[in-house]
């Protein structure tokens, strides 16, 4: 039992920016072949002063197989300081790691040996389904009152998907979050405006729509998710849906402003049926209602048919496939992963309605196959995917694998894993850290979490 609040908890996002630099990064690694293989959690040394900087220094293999680890999170974070349910003497200690395919929840203890966390609890998918009615677990966020986990499907692998709650003391599944889901059916990501008791959820597809790969028929019919949902976080009821339009397929990552007084956030759509572009939208208040405004369009790049995987050959273009975005803690810079074209962009979003492109690096990509300055001659595949920003906003890490069956479609030669780091200049501009290039031979890296918290792990109840 702690006598003082966990030192990694900060009342506000601005205060969290003054946190000391992280020394360790946890990276979910999924097995390359799937089918009976064990996924693992890797530990990367990110302390520039360390002799093992930019190297894997530890890992833990999951005891079960076929998990497809995705967006894991912490058992507790700065939201534990929220005044109405304060419990800041809990430790940020356990990683809550869900299996997107297996629906399992692993609890990893990072305290005894931070470099080699231990699996201390496994909740089987069957139990998750029995207690919550959900399966295919995706995003984990530490809330002020519980741990919240989104799920793509119901217990039977169909819809609706939703959100379940996990007790942050003993990690038992407490049940579904929603009291009234209204018309919401598809699920993917979720996040909130804690200062306004608002939950936002996005849409990808039900398990049967994604597990065998991107289904071109469903895609062309506009069947993947294209809506945003707004909820009353307190009453757990659906308030409003906003349809971005069926041509915007797969509405994924939600990055609300970190300042709890603000009421806007960013969301990406993966592919437009009109021109294969990706887009970034801002949700915001419009009187009593919620509204969305498209603020960034990233076009597809023309390509030689011979360089394209079968799925894209007919289009003679490579789509940007924006599949992750991340917002710095001061709500100033938005990072955008173009997994298809192999580009990571940085936008100044001080004015969320007028983003300014302030930086860009190229690496990997379906056609480009850009290399890293550490190995200039080496062509890389996969592209910028899961991106994470340090709390002070000065360092940006990203990995290159998306989701196994989709990896195979867009990179049929097999994604070879890598993780890189960018240095971000104070007023915009990004560049590769030449000393940081982690290659993965055995597994593929996905979500990154930084020791002590990062720009998408914590939420705050205090402004300023």
């Amino acid at each position, binding site marked *: 039992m702690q006598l003082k*609040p966990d030192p990694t908890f900060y009342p506000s996002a601005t205060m969290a920016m003054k946190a000391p630099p992280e020394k360790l990064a946890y990276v979910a690694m999924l097995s390359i072949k799937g089918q009976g293989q064990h996924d693992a959690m890797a530990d990367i040394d990110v302390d520039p002063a360390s002799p093992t900087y930019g190297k894997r220094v530890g890992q833990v293999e999951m005891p079960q197989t076929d998990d497809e680890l995705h967006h894991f999170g912490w058992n507790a974070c700065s939201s534990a300081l929220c005044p*109405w349910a304060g*419990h800041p003497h809990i430790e940020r200690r356990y990683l809550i790691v869900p299996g997107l395919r297996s629906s399992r929840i692993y609890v990893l203890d990072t305290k005894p040996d931070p470099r080699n966390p231990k699996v201390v609890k496994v909740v089987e998918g069957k139990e998750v389904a029995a207690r919550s009615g959900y399966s295919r677990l995706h995003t984990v966020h530490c809330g002020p009152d519980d741990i919240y986990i989104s799920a793509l499907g119901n217990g039977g692998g169909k819809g609706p998907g939703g959100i379940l709650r996990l007790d942050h003391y003993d990690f038992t599944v407490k049940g579904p979050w929603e009291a009234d889901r209204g018309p919401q059916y598809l699920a993917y990501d979720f996040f909130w405006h804690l200062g306004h*008791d608002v939950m936002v959820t996005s849409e990808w597809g039900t398990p049967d729509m994604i597990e065998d790969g991107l289904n071109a028929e469903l895609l062309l019919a506009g069947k993947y998710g294209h809506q945003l949902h707004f909820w009353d976080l307190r009453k757990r009821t659906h308030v409003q849906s906003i349809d971005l339009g069926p041509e915007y397929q797969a509405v994924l990552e939600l990055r609300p402003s970190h300042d709890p007084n603000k009421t806007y956030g960013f969301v990406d759509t993966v592919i437009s049926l009109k021109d294969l572009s990706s887009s970034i939208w801002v949700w915001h208040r419009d009187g009593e209602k919620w509204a969305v405004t498209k603020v960034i369009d990233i076009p597809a790049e023309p390509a030689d048919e011979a360089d394209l995987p079968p799925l894209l050959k007919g289009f003679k273009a490579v789509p940007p496939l924006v599949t992750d975005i991340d917002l710095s803690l001061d709500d100033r810079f938005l990072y955008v992963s173009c997994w298809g074209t192999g580009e990571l962009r940085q936008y100044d979003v001080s004015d969320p309605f007028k983003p300014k492109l302030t930086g860009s690096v190229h690496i990997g990509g379906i056609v480009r196959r850009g290399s890293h300055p550490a190995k200039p001659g080496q062509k890389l595949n996969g592209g910028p995917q899961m991106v994470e920003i340090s709390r002070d906003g000065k360092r940006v890490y990203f990995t290159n694998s998306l989701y196994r069956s989709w990896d195979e479609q867009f990179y049929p030669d097999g994604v070879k894993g890598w993780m890189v780091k960018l240095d971000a200049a104070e007023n915009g501009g990004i560049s590769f850290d030449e000393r940081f290039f982690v290659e993965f031979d055995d597994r593929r890296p996905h979500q990154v979490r930084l020791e002590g918290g990062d720009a998408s792990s914590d939420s705050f109840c205090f402004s*300023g």
Partner: protein
Amino acid sequence: MSRAWVWVALFALGCYHGINPGMGWLFAVAMGLQEKSLRAVFAALPPILIGHLASVAALVAIVGVAQRTLPQNDLRYAAAGVLLVFGVLRLVRARHIRWVGMRVGFSGLVTWSFLMATGHGAGLMLLPFLTGSVGPKDADLRMGMGQAMSIPALPPAQWPLAIAVHTFGYLLIMTATAWLVYDRTGVGILKATWVNFDLVWALALILSGLLILVL
């Protein structure tokens, strides 16, 4: 213990409840930061005060009814038992409430504060100073021990005044702390100063129970 000290203790307990971030001032500060106004901080205090007062008063009323039927010492043993059990429970299984949020109005704050005070046993902590302690046995008295330490019972007619004194201490410290943090230090001081009140609180409950029994 003299009667005067009983009043001091009741006031001090109020101050202690007032300084606990979980009992109200922090929520008031958060309201102020939402509205960016000190006035919002102060506007949040009355409903929080009412909720706390209602919880304490309800508990005292229950004890008031009980003391009409129970012999005085039975009441003391019962109060000590409840304090010890509740304190130990809070020690081994501290939980927080889960249903509120950041957008709360007057009635929401009253309810929240009532639940927080009740869940933490805020009123229970006053019991030793209302019922008095079991007191020294005759044998001890003959040997000249004990009398000075024991807590005298407060006549039930003075219990409303006891609640008032407690509430005054609570309001005073809660208001001062809320003002200080909002206007002067900022919520950053939480990191260093939010000690584990749940732990201290549980120990205080246990201590209160013991006071009744041993003094």
